[in-house]
């Protein structure tokens, strides 16, 4: 395990290391929490990827003081073909939240079958997106990130950017059931990082994938075309939304609550874009 220590020493400051150690984690004698989170792997991953947050996307996070302690559901817009938005939200919570929180992302069900990725994600605290897992995490006062747009969001083309798609309703039922506050999160920048012009749905279907992005650069420019554009990313955390009601209530009522969250996030996204203006690559800098 020497190389992990080395990466952490080289890539993280002492206060950053301490902040992760102080994140409310329940680690057993073997060095894991109940879901397999290994803080050392998380620190090493952060050490290696921090430049993506600070230098590549130059992320500006605001509204983190809105975050209540204990159980919380982060609900965010989703786009950009690959879950960069999830990764950046997770990094902002480790680097900038006080105290630091480990974001539990709800990953796709096919991920645990993949070699390398599956064990890395698990050690970084990521969990299969399953209602039971989510409920249990919230009951254990964890911070869970959900993209209710799902693949409807990540598969958006550049022409649909920042138009929030239909929200799934599962997260509302879980919030009602576990009494969890919802934090609306607006991420701006990620939806332009991969300007997909078409999702090639028919071909994707043949390959068993939900979508197949084609950008002006990918696949034509080869591996370089696969890099995301260095857009300037802003992440806004909104004030907590707390809903009351029957978690087993009729779908119409639940949908209305989900729409309320969606509308809030859409407004936050629109506002953030207005502030940015046309400056996709330098917007937040000014």
């Amino acid at each position: 395990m020497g190389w992990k220590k080395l990466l952490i020493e080289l890539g993280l400051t002492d206060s950053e290391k301490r902040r992760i150690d102080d994140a409310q984690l329940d680690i057993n004698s073997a060095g894991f929490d109940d879901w397999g989170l290994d803080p050392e792997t998380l620190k090493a991953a952060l050490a290696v990827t921090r430049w993506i947050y600070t230098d590549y996307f130059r992320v500006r996070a605001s509204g983190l003081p809105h975050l209540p302690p204990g159980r919380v559901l982060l609900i965010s817009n989703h786009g950009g073909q690959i879950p960069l938005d999830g990764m950046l939200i997770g990094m902002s919570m480790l680097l900038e939240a006080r105290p630091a929180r480990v974001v539990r992302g709800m990953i796709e069900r096919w991920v645990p079958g993949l070699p390398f990725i599956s064990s890395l994600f698990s050690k970084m605290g990521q969990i299969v997106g399953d209602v039971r897992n989510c409920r249990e995490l919230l009951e254990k006062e964890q911070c869970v990130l959900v993209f209710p747009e799902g693949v409807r969001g990540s598969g958006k083309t550049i022409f649909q950017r920042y138009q929030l798609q239909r929200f799934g309703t599962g997260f509302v039922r879980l919030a009602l059931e576990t009494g969890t506050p919802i934090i609306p999160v607006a991420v701006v920048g990620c939806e332009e990082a991969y300007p997909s012009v078409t999702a090639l749905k028919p071909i994707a279907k043949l390959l068993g994938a939900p979508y197949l992005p084609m950008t002006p650069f990918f696949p034509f420019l080869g591996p370089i075309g696969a890099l995301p554009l260095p857009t300037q990313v802003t992440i806004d955390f909104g004030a907590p939304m707390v809903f009351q009601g029957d978690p087993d209530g009729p779908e119409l009522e639940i949908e209305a609550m989900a729409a309320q969250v969606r509308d809030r996030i859409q407004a936050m996204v629109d506002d953030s874009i207005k502030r940015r203006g046309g400056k996709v690559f330098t917007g937040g800098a000014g």
Partner: protein
Amino acid sequence: MSGRETVLITGAAGGLAGIAVANLADSYDLVGVDPRPLPKGKDFPGEFHVIDYQHRRMGEVFRSHRVDVLLHLGRIPVGARLRSSDRYDTNVLGTRNLLQLARRHGVSRIVVLSTFHVYGAHPHNPGHLLEDDPLRASQTFPELRDSIEMDNLARMFMLQNPSIHLQVLRPVHVVGATIQNYISQLLRNDFCPVLVGYDPLLQFIHESDLARAIRLSIESRRSGVYNVAGEGVISYKRAVDSAGAWAVPLPSALVYGALGTLSRFRLGFPKHLVDFFRYPAVVSDAAFRREHGYQPSISTIEALRSLRSLRAVVEPPHTAG
């Protein structure tokens, strides 16, 4: 010695029974049965019979000893060098016979030791398996069907005979200085194969913690199915590390192929266990802890260390004998 209850223990010649018995001998009269004779140099603190569980003579054992508690530890795991039909007979027909005899002879409590393997290792498993989750092990490994059937038989008996307290225990990987199961033998090697790209979460329970759990089950007057685990989860690689072995990365295709060939000769490591080194099968033992006041006393790291630190002491007489 009247007033003491009698416990009939199956699998009494096995390593786990040895540990469980040490924990029970002070307060119960013990009777041991096993199709295998006791290993040389080992004795049983009570009467011991070499007998098949499905044999007619089993009735006589119940009759003559006035059994109060049946502790069924005698499940034969996959990979034992036995024909699968023999394994089926012991695990399924044997268990059925034991349960029927227990009912006929007024046994008041039954504890059946199943295994968490019945859940199967599967990429879609929830983060923490609960007792009412599906037993999907036989989907990928039909060899496990007798273990699942045995677990089912016991549960059905529990529902049909509410006046008899029956508990099914599904422990995680049992490790310790004396136990001779596959996982312990694997981790006692100096080199342990690791599947390239996979490092799933495992759970271990020390043999003495399982012995205590068994005693708690015998003493509690309730029925139910319970997962039983140790302190917490650990990744396989770190477990290999903690056990003092070297991890040898191997491509999984190679391992599956080689084991398939070996298993035709009934050699090697049981193939169904390989999946447990690829996908997670993590159980929650919250119900057992809550209802039995159970708390493991040996940490995962200590349990894994005990495999090796004591081996030096335990092994020489074996190799000599």
